[in-house]
């Protein structure tokens, strides 16, 4: 039984345009999966579906073999807070808060004491070389640093599933390597990592490769 899976998963917008159609795929524990395909093919949408942020129009998302796509909103939010880590395409940091605040943001949603979250955050920021930016605002750091901070936020809870949307899209090769290595290490710890990417090299380095077609 895979940690995360889809069964005949379909999603379309209100205008009737189908983005994902009858997709059945498994994301085993300990694996890194690459989602590739041209822009607009539904890579990001599939990540949001896997992350329980939107409900599919058909099929199912399974976590530990249990359908979770149709759970009440509160339950899906709880699963996201406790079991999922997200790295968004543009880092999606809060520009009005410090880097440290951004990294520990999810502690509030999980009900984790902030003190504990801060300790873990400092360890992660040190690992990714951004510890000196803890008190800076996102506007005062580079794009590569922002993406590493987004990675710290995603890994703070040691999530079982990490969903990363083009995590190396705007990064230099050295920083990209740090990010990919971190995701690989996290998968080696037993998590399922799913990466949407345009980077053929990154896709080739993954355990599994799902190519989505243009609509």
């Amino acid at each position, binding site marked *: 039984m895979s940690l995360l899976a889809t069964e005949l998963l379909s999603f379309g917008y209100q205008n009737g345009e189908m983005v994902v159609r009858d997709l059945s795929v498994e994301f085993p524990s300990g694996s890194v999966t690459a989602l590739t395909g041209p822009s607009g093919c539904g890579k990001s949408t599939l990540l*949001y579906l896997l992350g329980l*942020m*939107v409900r599919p129009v058909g099929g199912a998302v399974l976590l530990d073999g249990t359908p979770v796509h149709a759970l009440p909103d509160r339950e899906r*939010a709880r699963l996201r*807070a406790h079991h999922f880590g997200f790295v968004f395409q543009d880092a999606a940091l*809060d520009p009005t808060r410090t880097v440290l605040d951004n990294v520990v943001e999810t502690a509030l*949603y999980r009900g984790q*004491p902030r003190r504990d979250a801060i300790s873990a955050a400092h360890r992660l920021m040190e690992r990714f070389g951004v510890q000196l930016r803890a008190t800076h605002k996102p506007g005062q750091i580079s794009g590569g640093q922002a993406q590493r901070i987004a990675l710290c936020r995603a890994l703070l809870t040691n999530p079982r599933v990490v969903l990363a949307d083009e995590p190396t899209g705007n990064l230099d090769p050295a920083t990209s390597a740090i990010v990919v290595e971190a995701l690989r290490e996290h998968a080696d710890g037993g998590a399922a990592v799913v990466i949407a990417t345009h980077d053929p090299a990154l896709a080739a380095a993954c355990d599994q490769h799902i190519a989505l077609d243009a609509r």
Partner: protein
Amino acid sequence: MSVLGRVASLIREAYAAACSQPVASLLTVVMVAGMCAGALLTTGRTVAAEQAALSRIDAAGTRSVVVRADPDAGLTVALLDRLFAVDAIEAVAGFGPIVDARNAAVPGAPKVATRRAYGTIGDRAMVALPSIGGTTVEDRAFASSRALVALGLHDNTGDLVTDDGRGLVVVGELAVPAHLAFLEPLVVVPSSTVEALAGANPDDPLVVLVVLADTPQQVAVVEEIVRGLLTPTDPTKVSIETSAELAAIRAAVSGELGSYGRSLVLAILAGAAVLVAVNNLTLVTLRRKDFGRRRALGATQSLIIALLLSQVALLAVLGAAVGVVTALVGLAGARQPIPDVSFTAAVAIAAILTATLAALLPAVIASRRDPLHELRVP
């Protein structure tokens, strides 16, 4: 984490969010401060003037019914217990016939009227004091400050001798409430018992009966009740004075100003609520990506609503404090009447609740932000 810990985390995050959005936060503070100051500078001043007017009216005995009778009119102390059982009556005080007395230690000293007293005078029950030493229950008296001065009893105690040759011992000072001021200078011999206001001798005559209604509005009703219970042998020897006209004036003052004040406060609160709601709608619109991110990372809708409402409530508390202080300083500086604590607190609480409630719709909108729509990069 405990519930208390979660609440503390929520408030901490609300505070941090408020600090990170200084312009919107400042606007909310200013709006709530304006709401409070506006209410206090207009209605608050009116209410303070009303309270001062009502206080002056009340001091004149708005709630009292005074019955005067000749000693042989048939009015007895037995009436007191029947009156005290009536719901609309707060207190009764009865006084027996006057016996003049003077300081026993000063021959030729001025005389002061003494009376048997029943019921309650101010906070003091007119229960006869227990016998001590050689004195009897009927020997002990209390004197008002004016009486003490007139009698020359500078230590608030001393011996008196009455015109009929009886001795009295003044054992303390009696505070005389405003509605009994017409009896001054007053020396009373408490004569009720714990069991009955009428004391041991229910047939003792009363010459003055003062009945205090619960509210000014009940004076007319109480007057009717008193009239119904009076059974004088000779009605021409009994007279009743009421404060019904004062009560009517009081009701008119209270009603007119109260109605005007309520309307004005409601208008101010409604106006400010609209401004707070618009401010927060703007904030939610400008920061829709922020709320979309929070939802994506696991914030429930109820948490986002609680977060935004807490944020506005914190700012509203600050705004209310600023508004109240500003208004009170302004009123004091202009030597205008200052509303009492309860009205000021009510305005502040109403302002905080109104502002928080006004943020509910924006909070609900924020909680429904769709991460897919807000976070996707074209």
